């Protein structure tokens, strides 16, 4: 069974996440991720990004673009055999949903 090299590079991925979280604080509260197959069976890395309410409401595209580029600059997704997906939610939305994958 094919497994993308991203699976063996989790410390590198986490380091990149830490860097992006730090550089985009306080707008970016935290970033979680998961590696798996997407709807078409292609390997992917799913980033779940929690933003402050202010960033989510007033600067969503601006901050989202910085997150996407920040991660892409540090991680070679094609080389890791995964396609990146990014989903965003605000602190309030996560507080209401209480989804462990985003905590």
């Amino acid at each position, binding site marked *: 069974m094919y497994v993308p090299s991203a699976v063996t590079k989790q410390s590198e991925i986490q380091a990149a996440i830490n860097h992006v979280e730090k550089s985009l604080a306080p707008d970016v509260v935290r970033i979680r991720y998961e590696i798996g197959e*997407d*709807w*078409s069976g292609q390997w*992917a890395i799913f980033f779940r990004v929690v*933003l402050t309410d202010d960033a*989510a409401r007033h600067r*969503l*595209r601006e901050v*989202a*673009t910085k997150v*996407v580029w920040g991660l892409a600059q540090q991680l*070679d997704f*094609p080389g890791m055999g995964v*396609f*990146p*997906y*990014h*989903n*965003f*939610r*605000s602190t309030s*939305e996560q507080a209401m*949903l209480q*989804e462990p994958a985003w905590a």
Partner: protein
Amino acid sequence: MGLADELLSDARYLADQAIADQRRSHMRRVISTAYYAVFHLFVEDFVEHWEFPDQRARLGRMFNHGPMRASFTAKDKKNPTQLEKELIEVTTSFEQLQKDRERADYDSGWSLVETDVRNSVTLAEEVFEKWRRIEGEDLARHHLLSMFGAKRE
């Protein structure tokens, strides 16, 4: 106004309604509509250059969602040109919209929030803006061919 622009307009309108009403089914329609707006943006761009107007709709139906996810990589990954950067943003946004559309239509377990809805609409708006800025560039024209399924030379 073409179908792509109408769908984008619909997505904006539906987004306001869905968020105001906090109606999950409408939120899903927004995400699906935002994706199809972008899908038709590419299809319209491709077929409008076909010489025979009466065949354009038929030609447009030859587009398949899967091959349209053709990725693009800059020659110098670490230092993309502005054009390459915009094309990368267009293709990655298209893939994101496609993935979200799939979830919106089929994943009943997805806990949609307002941010998902607004993100889809603004992603689609960005694709429209960026694509229309670069669509005449040789690189973009070749990429459109790849989305149609043509192999790279």
